[in-house]
Structures are given as C-alpha cells and as structure tokens.
C-alpha cells in the first residue's frame, strides 16, 4: 500500500533544502529525496524525527493511500 507524504510542503514552510533537511534528521539528501518521491518509506524512528522537526504529528506528514483519498 503506497505511503503518501507532505514532506516537501512542510520543508518549504520552514525554508530548508533537502541537504539541510537531511542534516536535521541525520540522513542523507538522497534519502530525503527518495521519501519525497514516495520511493522510500522511512522507519518509525525516522518518521518521528521528521515530525519532530516540524512540530507536527507523523500522521500529518505521512498517510496511506486510503486515508489520503
């Protein structure tokens, strides 16, 4: 089941590029890029770290296809 995300929108809100986003959550730029494209589903730990950066809930950033629809 595809995992959708709003990572790019959230990232744009705080004005960081992929490299900077990666530094904030201890992953590479490539991983952030893959997550935004939907090509990689982050682990629970990584998803929580990302949500913490934006002071949001994990469910606000990541959702399954059904919930998205």
């Amino acid at each position, binding site marked *: 089941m595809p995992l959708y995300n709003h990572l790019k929108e959230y990232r744009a809100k705080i004005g960081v590029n992929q490299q900077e986003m990666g530094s904030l959550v201890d992953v590479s*730029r490539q991983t952030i890029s893959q997550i935004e494209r939907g090509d990689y589903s982050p682990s629970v730990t990584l998803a929580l770290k990302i949500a913490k950066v934006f002071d949001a809930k994990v469910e606000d950033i990541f959702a399954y296809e059904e919930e998205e629809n």
Partner: protein
Amino acid sequence: MSREQLENIKREDKKQGKKYITLLIVCFVAGGIGGVLTAFLADRGILYGLADMISTAIRKISIYYNLVATVILCVVVSLIYKKSKSVYTAWNGEDEAVIEKVEKLVSINLIIIGIHSIFYLIFMTIGCVEVTYEIEADRWPATEIIIMAIGFVVSSVFTVKGQQKLVNFTKEINPEKKGSVYDAKFQEKWLDSCDEMEKMRIYESGYAAFKTVNTACIVLDILCFLGMFVWNVGILPVCMVGIIWIINALAYYIKAMQLETKKYK
C-alpha cells in the same frame, strides 16, 4: 500449523517440483550433448589449440596491459571527474536532476576504478608467469620486466589516488559520510555513517552479489571439470572454485546466524 497450511506447503512443493524435475532433465540432456561435443572437439585437438592460442595472447597482452589501460582509464576518469565537479559547482542546492547526474558520474568512475583494481592484479600475476616462461627459455626480458614494473606502480597509484579523490568528492556532496580510504577500517566507518536507506541498498546489493557468486561458481565448476579432461588443467582450478564457493556460503550463513540475536534499535 494447521492442516490447511501443511496442505498449501505440499501443493506448492508439488507445483514447483514438476518444474524442477523438468529443468533437471533439460540440464542432463544439455550436459550430455555438451560432454559429447567437448570430447569430439578434444579428440581433434581443436579445443586445446584454441585454448593455447587464447592463453598465449593473454600472456603477451598482460605485459603491457597495466601501463596502457591505466593511461587510457586515467584520461577517461579525469574527464568524467572534471565534468561531475563542474556540474556540482553549478548546482543550486535544489535541482534533484542535477545532483543525481553528479552522483551517477561519480558511481561510473568508482565502477571503472573498482574493476580496474581487480584486473591490474590479475594481469600482473599473468605477466609474471609470462616473464618466467621467457627466463626458462633462456631469454632475459628486461624491457618487459621494466614495463610491467612501471605498469604495476602506475596502476597502484591510479587506483588508490582515484578512489581517494572520488571518496572525498562524495564526502563533499554528502558531509555526513565518514572514513578515509587510507584507513584499514574505512569500509566499517563508511557503513556506520550511512543512513537506513543507504544501508538497505548496501545489504540488498550484498545479497545480489552472494546469489551471483553462487551461480558463477556452478558455471566455473562445470568449466573446470571440462578443463580437467580437455586441457589437462588438473584439480587445482576446481579446488579454487570450491574454496571461493564455500567461503561465500559460509560468510553468508554465519552472518545470518549472528544476526538472529541482533537488536535492531
């Protein structure tokens, strides 16, 4: 386990078992035809003549390979490196297509140097065999020895310096990466600095390599078996293939057992 699950397992085995037996029969017939053909060609000395020709050609080439290949590859790698550097310098920090192009160019260079690092050692070894043959024939190949020595040094420097430059460039693109190519524990440090997605890629690649080596060993085992009768190579090649095969399998199984008790935090 329920009776239905056991029945499903048996059904799947039965279905795949039929395909497996068909494959065995096809391999048996193909092996038989191949064996008869090999014996036919061997009787007429065709295969031996061909093998001898190939072997002589490789031995002659090996004297010059390292020097010539390194010069050519140095030019190719340098051009690709310069291109990747200029594209990276012009990158605005956002355009994904641009940075992916840079990373692809770096990967191409790493593959070129990686493959060359294996070839130059192999050709160095074969070159030494050729020099030995020349000396045994009372010819002192001084020029060939000097060319081989220079080629070896040049190849070694190219491989190490090339990898150093590419690794340092990768660290420039990805500042979180750690490790120096001069460090004996470079691979460990590099892996530790990789994130979850990169580690998954490395592990998947490792598994693909494990499966490929297994298949390659089967093929090489057959070739060495034929070689024993057609080219009289003795049992050493088969033993070497067996050793590599066993090491490949044991490395995988032992690591898998160790990982059963690993905590993934």
